């Protein structure tokens, strides 16, 4: 992935920046030009809470090449209190213990190294709530 793309994706990825639709109030993560619920185009910036609940999850045993050293690892869909849902790994626990309904905290972590240059890509992962 070329570096301008990494740069573009930073607000959502580095600080969980989202957008609240002025038309219907939906919290859209990451921000988009048009609201997926009402197609409104007026938004205000909002931040997601660094916590949420697992909606569904899996444990990836057979991983893509870039993640092979980490397998097995849990990946989940997490819903934040604002109603936004995001996909994220769940770490710092037994991957088998990650199940729907689990409360998690979102933490800033290294996600992957990309391309021949090994660009470090950061973002959020989930950990069991304290």
């Amino acid at each position: 992935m070329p570096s301008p793309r990494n740069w573009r994706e930073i607000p959502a990825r580095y600080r969980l920046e989202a957008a609240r639709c002025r038309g219907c109030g939906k919290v859209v993560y990451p921000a988009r030009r048009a609201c997926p619920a009402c197609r409104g185009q007026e938004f205000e910036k909002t931040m997601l809470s660094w916590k949420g609940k697992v909606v569904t999850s899996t444990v990836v045993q057979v991983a893509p090449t870039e993640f092979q050293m980490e397998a097995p690892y849990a990946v989940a869909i997490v819903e934040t209190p604002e109603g936004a849902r995001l996909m994220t790994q769940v770490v710092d626990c037994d991957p088998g213990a990650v199940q729907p309904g689990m409360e998690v905290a979102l933490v800033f972590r290294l996600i992957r190294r990309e391309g021949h240059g090994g660009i470090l890509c950061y973002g959020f992962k989930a950990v069991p709530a304290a």
Partner: protein
Amino acid sequence: MREVAIVSAGMTRFGELWESSLRDLFAEAALEALAAAKVDRLDSIVVGCMSGGQFVGQEHIGPLMADQIGMAGVAATHVESACASGGVALRTAFLEVASGASDLVLAAGVEKMTDGADVTAVLATAADQELEAFHGITFPGLYAMIARAHMQANGTTEEDLAWVAVKNHRHGALNPKAQFAREVKLEEVMKSSMVSDPLRLLCCSPVSDGAAAVLLCPLEHAKRYTDHPVKIRGTGLATSTMALADRKDPAFLDAVQLSGERAYKMAGVGPADIQVAEVHDCFAIAEICCIEALGLVEKGAGRHAARTGLTALGGKIPVNTSGGLKSKGHPVGATGIAQAIEIFEQLRGGAGARQVKGARIGLAQNMGGSGASSVVHVFEGV
């Protein structure tokens, strides 16, 4: 719109076909379809292929394939909708004939997956790159999340998933073109290695090479080419959110429901009229979700269908008589056309040991990504 029929079909065996290239596969299927109808001209070719670019470094598939069958000069287009590329090629060809723009159109699908590409990574490009693949999710992983949500909502078990594999392999064992034409036992499925919890290896479709092609023309011309044409009564295409996280209910494939409703409406039929169906069982859970979304069983009841024999050959509504993606193989771009061919053969009584007796109306449903696109066709033997 004009009424449209399929008049002939051609298909390679599915499997790890080391000796065949992308173009070889296409040409074999396409030439078989043309020969069966004794046709030496075409108005147009539509080729479904998920990613020639990533699997073998080949784009510009339309003219390449026209050229390979001696049809340089003919209009040719490549269409893509990930694993639904074949179904979308069929729909595109259907619309071209129905509109009156063309009389003879070849709808084909092809994929060459075993030439050394990182298949898991290529397939993952059909997921949302920024929100899903970035975090290390795979396609088995996405469907595993759908499975776990379905288990939470409906009490679906790993054994329910395994029964889908057992049933489809039982069907596929009767299909000489299937990649894994053999039966599997429930215990084998339950003991196979975990790919992405709760999906085991034998609940996943394989990596395959293959091609399939069908010839379309206006229904009123069909008898020039065959005594047993099959009419395409309805087509429906729908989309859902690209990211699984954005779906209100991750266990419900809303694009499948929408595409089904559109195809039923156009065909003037309902789920109760369908006598044989091919649905997109890329993973065992997908078949359960698809038959629910298409209304072939009630929502939440899909988990029992394979075990009770409802969807098996001899059952009330046989599903994936070809063996499905699971046993027949899943060369992604070819799958949608191969599904249509199974229904085509069923509705003209040519399905051999897999024949559903007296089947007159059938359905094929082909899906892209984690269900972000779905295309359904309803067919009738005439």
